[in-house]
């Protein structure tokens, strides 16, 4: 600490020892070297991207078309890019942790503190900066298209939400280069994360990255709820909405109500750490159990917040690639609602072992178990959707079937963990780690990847490479199984989670199996990136400008790929469910509009960038006690919002002639194109116009 340094007013508690590269030079242990390499990767990665952008002359376009854009589609893509970048780090951390435990019998190669940092950042990153932005990205891209809207209700707020999420991610990345991240795990229980036990910057990094990103999620949720309620195309009733949109509605409501507990938990912990409050301290009447309750009051709904949109994606994917309407649409909707409500009533099952009365435990246990009912119904509904269909095993469908088979095993262990008596034994062990990875990887991640493959051609106008996609999916499935099934067994054997090392030699063989699985997951990530590269290279053969490569059922497939900025040249009038599929059947998939109107779209704004820069500065200032910078950045941000409010509604008009020209050209291309059957789905002939295929004898 440089508490007495003369520069303290200027740089707070930052000093040279905050740079991890220096300790690595002074004391080159494996642990320090890993830390230094990670820091270098961040620095070089950042520099590399900057150089590339400069070399290609992309700065103007980056600024004008992306960073200042309020287009929900571009914001969605930026979210997903952020998620993929963070996923690379998260997966690498997971691999390093598996390696450490495989070598952990004799202590391994990482220091205990470094291992603790790894599991803390891994959890924080994967939840807040991979799963959340990936979901927010897909929702942003797809939901307005599915409901026939031109944008979300509050485009500028949408941009600010992205900025807030990016600030959190930036702080976590910066913690690799400046100082250390928390060692308190992703829930950061006090008193361990209190100032008495952890006076360093680590827990502060956690607090501010999560608090700021959480605020972004709250605002995103608000935006999505309003969009779904207020921006649906005329004629679209709630029960006409695609299932993905339904799950988004439920998720968004959960965001609005479940993020505030996280805000309260993080900010009260910050008050304890910064201003000597005593919410959770050991002495003076603090009560750490309040934190545990608050955190899981957020944390449990969060799990459903993550998985419901994935359920929505699977519903779309399974229905589309089975060539059928969804079985039990209403069942699925009600099941989604039941899950959303129940998700707020089960938080206590994360701490059955805290010593409360047996009856309290039992009540929460029963509630937790009942969530299995609607979840199980959904699985059966998807199977019934595949039943008597015409299933094409494309990449999204591989993910979907991998999900169905693996997820039920996670459901099985979930039912077990809902029993307090069983939880007494397997809580805090690797069994629990295996369980939540078993629901989050096959459930959430596979869903997101299925969605990524499914909607990629919509966003970019060309399909992703099937072969590499299938290879990657199979690596994910097998890698998951090899990594996490052994952890179930290790947990039953009594190995606690978060152990950097262990003394029982009987744990060792299975940690090696898990290490092998982690290597497969690494291959899965690598092939996923290779697929992206290959797909971009070969994009000439996979163009789908006509917009409907999968014989889609919902409105997003009824427009060109990539869609124009205003999405719909004419806002569609919707009758019934699966609107586009029904229209195609009637031969009215591509109607010629009677006329066109001027379209009003929001202008670009710099507000998001002001928030991004100001908020990152604020976060760093708070972490490092640089008070002048904290005040300055806060004043700048508030000032920017106030100044913005003095500028009357920033809109621009896209003239009807321009809209008409683009739309007519697209309709003409469709009229000329020959539709393809599903047998040609993955071939170069598929340019995005689907042939009608009805059952033999029915057409």
């Amino acid at each position, binding site marked *: 600490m440089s508490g007495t340094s003369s520069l303290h007013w200027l740089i707070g508690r930052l000093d040279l020892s905050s740079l991890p590269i220096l300790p690595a030079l002074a004391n080159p242990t494996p642990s320090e070297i890993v830390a230094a390499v990670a820091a270098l990767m961040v620095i070089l990665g950042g520099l590399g991207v900057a150089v590339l952008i400069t070399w290609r002359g992309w700065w103007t376009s980056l600024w004008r078309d992306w960073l200042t854009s309020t287009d929900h589609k571009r914001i969605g893509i930026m979210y997903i890019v952020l998620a993929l970048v963070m996923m690379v780090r998260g997966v690498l951390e997971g691999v390093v942790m598996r390696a450490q435990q495989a070598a952990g019998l004799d202590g391994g190669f990482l220091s205990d503190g470094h291992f603790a940092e790894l599991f803390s950042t891994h959890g924080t990153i994967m939840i807040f900066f991979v799963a959340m932005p990936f979901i927010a990205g897909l929702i942003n891209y797809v939901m307005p298209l599915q409901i026939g809207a031109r944008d979300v209700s509050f485009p500028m707020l949408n941009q600010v939400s992205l900025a807030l999420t990016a600030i959190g991610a930036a702080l976590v990345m910066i913690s690799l280069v400046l100082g250390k991240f928390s060692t308190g795990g992703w829930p950061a229980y006090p008193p361990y994360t209190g100032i008495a036990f952890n006076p360093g910057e680590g827990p502060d990094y956690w607090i501010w990255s999560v608090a700021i990103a959480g605020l972004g999620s709250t605002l995103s949720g608000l935006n999505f709820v309003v969009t779904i309620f207020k921006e649906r195309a005329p004629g679209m009733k709630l029960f006409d909405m695609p299932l993905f949109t339904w799950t988004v509605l439920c998720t968004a409501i959960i965001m609005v109500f479940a993020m505030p507990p996280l805000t309260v938990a993080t900010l009260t912990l910050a008050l304890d750490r910064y201003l000597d409050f005593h919410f959770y301290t050991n002495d003076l009447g603090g009560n750490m159990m309040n934190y545990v309750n608050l955190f899981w009051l957020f944390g449990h709904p969060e799990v459903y917040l993550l998985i419901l949109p994935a359920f929505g994606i699977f519903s779309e994917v399974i229905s589309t690639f089975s060539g059928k309407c969804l079985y039990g*649409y209403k069942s699925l909707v009600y099941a989604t609602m039941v899950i959303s409500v129940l998700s707020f009533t089960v938080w206590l099952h994360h701490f059955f*072992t805290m010593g409360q009365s047996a009856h309290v435990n039992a009540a929460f246990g029963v509630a937790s178990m009942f969530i299995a009912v609607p979840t199980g119904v959904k699985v059966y509904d998807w199977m019934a959707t595949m039943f008597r269909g015409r299933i094409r*095993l494309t990449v999204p469908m591989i993910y979907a079937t991998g999900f169905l088979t693996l997820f039920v095993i996670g459901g099985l262990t979930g039912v077990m963990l809902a029993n307090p008596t069983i939880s*007494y034994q397997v809580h805090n062990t690797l069994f629990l780690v295996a369980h939540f990875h078993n629901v989050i990887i096959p459930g959430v991640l596979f869903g997101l990847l299925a969605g990524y493959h499914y909607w990629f051609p919509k966003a970019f106008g060309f399909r992703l490479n099937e072969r590499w996609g299938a290879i990657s999916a199979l690596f994910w499935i097998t890698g998951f199984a090899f990594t996490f099934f052994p952890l179930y067994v290790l947990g039953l054997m009594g190995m606690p989670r978060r152990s*950097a090392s262990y003394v029982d030699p009987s744990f060792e063989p299975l940690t090696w199996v898990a290490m092998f699985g982690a290597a497969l997951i690494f291959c899965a990530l690598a092939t996923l990136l290779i697929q992206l590269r290959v797909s971009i290279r070969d994009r000439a053969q996979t163009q789908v400008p006509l917009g409907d490569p999968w014989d889609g059922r919902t409105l997003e497939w009824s427009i060109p790929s990539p869609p124009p900025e205003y999405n719909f040249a004419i806002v569609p009038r919707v009758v019934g469910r699966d609107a586009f599929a029904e229209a195609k059947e009637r031969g009215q998939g591509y109607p010629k509009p009677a006329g066109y109107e001027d379209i009003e779209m929001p202008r670009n704004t710099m507000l998001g960038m002001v928030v991004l820069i100001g908020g990152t500065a604020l976060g760093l200032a708070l972490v490092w006690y640089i008070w002048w910078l904290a005040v300055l950045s806060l004043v700048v941000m508030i000032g920017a919002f106030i100044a913005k409010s003095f500028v009357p509604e920033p809109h621009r008009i896209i003239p009807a002639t321009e809209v008409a020209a683009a739309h007519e050209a697209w309709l003409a291309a469709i009229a000329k194109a020959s539709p393809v059957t599903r047998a040609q789905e993955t071939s170069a002939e598929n340019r995005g116009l689907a042939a009608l295929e009805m059952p033999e004898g029915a057409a």
Partner: protein
Amino acid sequence: MKYGWLWLLALFVTAAAVFSPGASFAWPESSSFFTPQGPIAQAEKDHFLQTAAITMIAVLPVLLLVPLILWRYRYGNRKASYRPKWEFSGPLDLLMWGVPIAIVAILSVELWQETVSLDPYRPLPSEKAPLEIQVVGLDWKWLFIYPEQGIASVGEMGFPADRPVKLSLTSDTVMQSFMIGALAGQIYVMPGMQTQLQLMADAPGLFEGENTQFNGAGFPMQRFRAVAQTDEGFANWVAEVKAQGVPLDPQTYGKLAVSSTPAEVHRTLASPQMPADAVWFSPVAPDLFERVLRRYHQGSALEPGGQPGSFLHDPDTLSQSLPETTQ
């Protein structure tokens, strides 16, 4: 379709990954409830297997039918029927909702009964009076105080087999979680608060005890031997601890509470007669457990040095900050 065979291969590999580790594995006898050594762990294992079996009723159809449906209704199979508009069937829906509800209802009844009967606070049925042990969680070791015997131990918890043991637990640092898997489940320990755990061993034996809640660098080392003995053996053990133990006064407690592993404590405090990784104490300052609990309720801030586990911890401040004995 092209990659269908790959998918099946993956399914096969996955199945192998599920079943191989469990089957080929030699379970350690001493640390898991899968090799239970007492009635509580036995009941927990039974409940675990029972729940798994009943839930399989809902899970197995998925595992079997998904590959079948995938194969039967593949795009290329023109012989299979195709009903693109089929979206609802009353009886099927009844089955889909009914079976899971029935399963969960049955499991809920089980859950309620088991949770109440295995409540860690509930005294175990036995003619013998339980042995009382007070447990203090420190960084990174457990201190066992035997109030009736006037002794204490670190790294080793001796107790008689076939007699209930009633543990009262607290922490003098951050939150931890106490578990002897082969005997009973875990319970959190928190500073200034007391939790309880009841357990019993069927027969003499050695069991692994641990902390499962991460609490810093020495966390993986926070382990101890739980030694179930015959009544006679336990009496001998107590006598030996009394004979060999070093006094546990506030000064010694201050040194003990420094963040250190059991092995380090052994090096600093133990005499050569004590077993490896363990330290025995006798006599023990009266009311030590209550005083540790009361430290956090004195109505004034704990001096920074008086907080074990904190960066400013200082053994002398701690020993002075232990409240006066009530006697």
